[in-house]
């Protein structure tokens, strides 16, 4: 992350505040900053979303675009599944250090995390639904995330944006026909319907998990750390929880030390509780974003990214 210099006095101030349950900007330990969510802003993508935690210019901003492509089956791949390919890129507009190859480590880490959460039965999306014709063709869903601004809590924002984008993804319908040869062999052919209105949403996207990241500061932990809090954090635990209250993925990051085991189990319990609230909040925001996108029509694709208050 962008390097931030924090003095020992500031560190002490923040730590003591967190142990009492109050943070620098007035939030309590488990409060998230204000989240703004917009969908359907990239007209050429099958699905897109942009999520910002915090205010414009002062928050973490992630833009996710989803594109679906048809791939031909190669021997060696699984015969009846599609696939999801993730890619996260941190734009140098977010921080000076991301120029050239500076963001590579962060990109790889976030890509792998997203990949681990999404690829597999725990993501809620059954990859078999993405198969068009077994052993012949399948859908590949490319998830491309672009991090435009980083001010702490990047994983959560990334997951919110990805979830919103996948929920709003529309796959074109595919017509599969079986044709018989002269020899009596049957061959299946598929045709992607070109009609932009004839689309179907991605099945299973409602079951996508949401992540909550807890940063340990002192003896307590906080949700949605700001830049300063992340600079003094001792250890970080990211938990992905699905709407069915199942834990889908866990990752511990953080450079200074490890978690005491009792804290880990406490965090897991809190994660399950907090994530249900977060999912509710997400649904509200997402519904508002979709309503706006539908109302806006053409307006949603232009101008809704930077020009308005967003």
């Amino acid at each position, binding site marked *: 992350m962008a390097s931030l210099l924090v003095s020992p006095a500031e560190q002490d101030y923040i730590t003591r505040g967190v142990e009492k349950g109050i943070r620098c900007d007035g939030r309590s330990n488990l409060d998230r900053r204000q989240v703004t969510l917009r969908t359907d802003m990239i007209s*050429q993508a099958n699905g897109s979303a942009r999520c910002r935690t915090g205010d414009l210019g002062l928050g973490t901003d992630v*833009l996710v675009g989803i594109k679906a492509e048809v791939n031909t089956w190669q021997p060696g791949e699984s015969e009846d599944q599609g696939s999801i390919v993730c890619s996260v890129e941190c734009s140098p507009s977010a921080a000076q250090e991301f120029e050239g190859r500076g963001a590579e480590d962060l990109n790889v880490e976030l890509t792998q995390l997203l990949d681990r959460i999404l690829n597999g039965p725990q993501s809620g999306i059954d990859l078999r639904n993405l198969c068009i014709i077994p052993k012949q063709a399948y859908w590949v869903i490319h998830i491309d995330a672009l991090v435009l601004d980083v001010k702490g809590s990047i994983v959560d924002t990334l997951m919110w944006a990805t979830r919103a984008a996948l929920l709003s993804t529309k796959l074109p319908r595919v017509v599969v026909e079986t044709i018989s040869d002269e020899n009596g062999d049957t061959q299946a052919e598929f045709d992607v319907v070109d009609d932009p209105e004839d689309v179907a949403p991605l099945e299973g996207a409602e079951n996508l998990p949401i992540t909550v990241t807890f940063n340990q500061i002192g003896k307590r932990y906080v949700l949605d750390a700001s830049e300063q809090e992340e600079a003094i954090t001792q250890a970080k635990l990211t938990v992905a929880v699905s709407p069915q209250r199942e834990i889908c993925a866990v990752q511990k990051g953080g450079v200074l030390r490890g978690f005491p085991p009792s804290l880990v189990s406490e965090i897991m319990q809190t994660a399950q509780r907090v994530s249900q609230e977060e999912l509710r909040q997400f649904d509200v925001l997402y519904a508002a974003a979709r309503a706006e996108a539908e109302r806006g029509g053409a307006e949603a694709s232009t101008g809704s990214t930077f020009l308005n208050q967003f």
Partner: protein
Amino acid sequence: ISCRASVLDTADGSAYFEQGNTKVLVAVYGPREPRQKSLVPYDKALVNVEFNVAPFSTSERRKRSKNDKRLLEVAAFVKQTFESVIQTHVYPRSQINIYIQLLQHDGGTLEACINAATLALVDAGISMKDYVCACTAGFIDETPVLDLNFVEESSIETPDLTVAILPRTGKVALLQMESRLRSDKLEDVMDMAVSGCKSIHQKLDQAVMAAATDLSEKLGH
């Protein structure tokens, strides 16, 4: 066309520029301490441009590596254009970084990048001789046409001329053309592009005024 300055907080200057469906975000960091001290001339600033294209920006998804020749070419053009316009002797031995992020691609990327970069540089407070306004023009069916989009650009027969001018003096900072154009038609197409640049200049000026008024209001004037 719509644009807005000062959209990012960490960058010294930033701008967002939209022309139809082409959307560009530019961040400017500088003047800063140079990365490689050996490259920096003793009496001028070094202008460094990096151009990034988002994979979802075109209708077919394409992930470009950082060293893609097309990207490097656009970056080199932008760099050349601004090296002549920024008063580099005011910032000796320092580096000015311009990071361009293309969010959506619908033709006219070079011109959008230059316009957005101008706005971002003004927002960063870097002294320049003048605005740089760019515009594309082409020739379809015997008529000069302004501002080609992606579909028009990709057709092989349409010549595509990008012109960047300094509005006050009318000098040409960048001229790039692909495909063939009859030399007698060149003047018409150029004139069209130059008049397009003038209207873009007005837009950029408005955006700068808006950002400046916003800032002065916040300062309490």
